[in-house]
């Protein structure tokens, strides 16, 4: 009984979250470039497919997001677990502080760091600087999600395993890690999305060859120029939606 009420409520919340998305998709078929409906058209999709900047941006964003998410999930999970076992005020403090820092400040400070150190290392801004920056701010997100999960976790389970002869590593990998798996997946997803959608930090530390999709989209949308942006977003949503449904089917098998 309670489940049904919960289900209806959740449906409403999801609809609320997805409303802008639907509008986006509807207007991607608008033949006019203004948000006044004029007629049905595929022209923006054609424009989107033919735009090399968009393709480059998408590719860069995907590479960056995947690499950054993987590394930050790894580092963040280890950090959260380490802090849970053995308090480290400095580390947890700096993790929280990194969360609390406004994006523009993170961006400008990292830019300053890169510019200064690169003079000695003879390096330039590029994809690698974007990845580094994304990992820097994602670690905290991952750590928080995992820590929240760990607070409900029973310490004695690991101790019991060790009493039974398991090494510290095995106690972690065979006992704790499996039950952390859903939280790790959730944290990884969060890190992925946060990285893919980031604009402020990325635009500051990106180099000559590393334009990401948000940068391209911001440029187009800020000028109020064209619904190509809608078309791209619609394509992305459909693509990811399909991937999600597919992975769900595979899981249910």
């Amino acid at each position, binding site marked *: 009984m309670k489940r049904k009420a919960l289900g209806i*409520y959740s449906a409403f919340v999801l609809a609320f979250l997805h409303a802008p998305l639907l509008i986006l998709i509807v207007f991607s078929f608008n033949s006019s470039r203004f948000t006044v409906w004029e007629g049905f058209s595929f022209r923006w999709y054609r424009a989107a497919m033919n735009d090399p900047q968009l393709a480059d941006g998408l590719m860069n964003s995907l590479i960056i997001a995947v690499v950054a998410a993987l590394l930050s999930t790894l580092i963040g999970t280890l950090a959260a677990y380490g802090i849970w076992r053995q308090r480290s005020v400095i580390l947890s403090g700096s993790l929280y502080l990194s969360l609390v*820092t406004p994006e523009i400040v993170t961006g400008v400070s990292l830019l300053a760091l890169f510019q200064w150190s690169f003079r000695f290392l003879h390096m330039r801004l590029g994809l690698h600087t974007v990845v580094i920056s994304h990992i820097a701010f994602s670690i905290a997100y991952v750590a928080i999600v995992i820590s929240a999960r760990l607070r409900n976790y029973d310490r004695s389970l690991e101790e019991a395993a060790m009493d039974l002869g398991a090494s*510290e590593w095995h106690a972690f990998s065979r006992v704790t890690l499996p039950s952390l798996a859903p939280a790790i997946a959730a944290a990884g997803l969060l890190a992925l999305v946060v990285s893919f959608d980031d604009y402020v930090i990325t635009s500051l530390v990106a180099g000559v060859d590393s334009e990401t999709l948000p940068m391209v989209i911001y440029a187009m949308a800020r000028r109020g120029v064209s619904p190509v942006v809608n078309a791209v977003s619609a394509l992305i949503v459909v693509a990811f939606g399909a991937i999600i449904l597919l992975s769900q089917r595979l899981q249910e098998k």
Partner: protein
Amino acid sequence: MSLRSRFLLPARVWMALFFAAPMAIVLSYSFLTRGEYGGVEQPWTVENFIRLAEPIYLSILWRSIWIAGLSTALCALLGFPLALFISRSGRRRNLYLQLVLLPFWTSFLVRTYAWLFILRDTGLVNTVLMRLNIIATPMQLLYNDRAVLLGLVCNFLPFFVLPMYATLERLDPALLEAAADLGARPFATLRRVIIPVSAPGFVAGSVLVFIPCLGAYLTPDLLGGGKTVMLGNLVQNQFTTARDWPFGSAASLVLMLASALLLASLMRSRMARELT
């Protein structure tokens, strides 16, 4: 080195290089002076911090805390039942989680523009309401605090749902059955069983929502019509149009400090209550 210390090592190195070092730079900026053409230059001064104590900046701080707090509360209200629902959905869990995140694969700016379209005078909501003769003239749904709240909640809801879900996922249905068997009414079960277990998720989710809301600038700009200044706008403005990096650094340090203090007090109160 013990295993635990080794676990902490990568994070320590990363944070030292790519957080502590840049922060040191920002700290030094806050004590310098605005450069003629942007950037920073000598002399060293505390003027930036003194300037922050003026009433106008304090009112900006207060306003930001208020709006961020309200957004967090709304996210909790909307997000908790959703997270609960997802955690009990069995094999469909991942599907729902990813549905929550689906809109976020599109650009934040584009989504906000979509809200502009929905809430405009000639937008979706007003047109529908007028067609149904519920209202005669368009309602001013946009360019006020309400619209900003809507935008913030819409954008940060997943940041609450995900940690909440991660915590609730652990909730054993057997516990709920046991409570029911022992005669507890649903509300009591909620109060005595579900809420204590979900407390860490609440805290984590609130943190992940409140903090970015405090530093948000795009949403108040676009949905609030740029008519109000939140801390995020102030900092953003200093680093861009005003080209006053020292003042911007000082403002963001204050922002960070305020958030850190709030965080610390929250953590301590929760932990204290959990241990007793």
